[in-house]
C-alpha cells in the first residue's frame, strides 16, 4: 500500500514496526516496571549512568536490539541502509550522546513512552527535538551539504 502523494512512504510497514515498538515498551513497563528508553538503558549498561534497572537487564535489552533487527534483516533478505560518512556519524553521535543525557531521553523514552503517558516533560522534549531535527536538515540542505549517499 502506498500513501497518496507520498510514493516512497511505507505506512503499513511503519505502523507494524511501530506497534512492535509499542509492544516492546509495554512489556518493559508492565513486565518489569521500567521505561524502555534506549539512551538511558544504553548509559546504564555501559555504566555511564546509574539507574534502578539492573545492569544485566540493561545489557539484555541493548543486545536484544540488534538481535531483533537481525531477524528482520534475514527474513527480508536485506534492508536498505544509507549511512552518512564517518565524520558526520561521529559528530552526530557525539551530539546525540550529550543531548540525550542532558535531556534525559530520546525518541523512545520521551517520544514513545513519555508522550503516551501525556508527560508534560516528554511532550516538550519531543516537540523540541523534532523542531531542531527539522531545522538541522533544512539548514544543511540550504547549505548544500549532502550527508547521505
Amino acid at each position, binding site marked *: 500500500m502506498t500513501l497518496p502523494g507520498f510514493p516512497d512512504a511505507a505506512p503499513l*510497514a511503519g505502523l507494524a*514496526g511501530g506497534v512492535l515498538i509499542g509492544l516492546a515498551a509495554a512489556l518493559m513497563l508492565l513486565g518489569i516496571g521500567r521505561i524502555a528508553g534506549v*539512551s538511558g538503558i544504553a548509559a546504564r549498561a555501559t555504566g555511564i549512568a546509574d539507574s534502578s534497572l539492573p545492569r544485566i537487564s540493561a545489557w539484555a535489552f541493548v543486545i536484544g536490539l540488534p538481535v531483533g533487527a537481525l531477524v528482520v534483516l534475514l527474513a527480508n533478505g536485506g534492508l536498505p541502509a544509507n549511512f552518512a560518512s564517518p565524520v558526520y556519524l561521529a*559528530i552526530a*553521535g557525539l*551530539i546525540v550522546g550529550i543531548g540525550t*543525557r542532558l535531556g534525559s531521553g530520546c525518541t523512545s523514552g520521551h517520544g514513545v513512552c513519555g508522550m503516551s503517558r501525556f508527560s508534560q516533560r516528554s511532550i*516538550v522534549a519531543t516537540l*523540541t527535538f523534532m523542531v531542531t531535527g527539522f531545522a*538541522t536538515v533544512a539548514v544543511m540542505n540550504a547549505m548544500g551539504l549532502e550527508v547521505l549517499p
Partner: protein
Amino acid sequence: MSGRIVIPALSGSIFGAGLALGGMTDPARVRGFLDIFGDWDPTLAFVMGGAVLVMVVAWQIQPRLTQPMFGGGFNLPGTQDLTPRLIGGSALFGIGWGIAGLCPGPGIAALVIEPVSAAIFVVAMLAGMFLVRLFEGNA
C-alpha cells in the same frame, strides 16, 4: 530470573525488530521524515503513531497492577519540571538526530545491518554521554 534477563531481552529484540521493520534503521527514512521542506517521507509518523497508540493502552493498564507481572516494583520517572537542561539537551539531541538521521535505538540496532557505520555512531554517542558524566561528576 525471567524479569532480570528474559523480559528485557525479549523487549529489546521486539523493539529492534520493530525499528527494522518500520524502516528506522535506514537513516535515509529518518532524514526523509525530518526533511519537511523537501521530499517529505511521513513513514516515521506511522512508526511513532503505532508505538504511542499501544503505549497509551499500556499506561491505562499500569495503574491497575499492584506490581509488574515479572517481579520487582514499578520504578517510573516522576519529575514534572520543565528545565533549561531538558529543553537544551533535547534541542541538541534533535540537531544530532538531523545530521545523520540516527537516534540511539536505530544506531544500536543497525550494528547488524551496517556494522562499521553504526559502530562509529554508537561509540561517539557513548563518548558524548560520558562527557556529560565527566562534567557533572555523576549524572
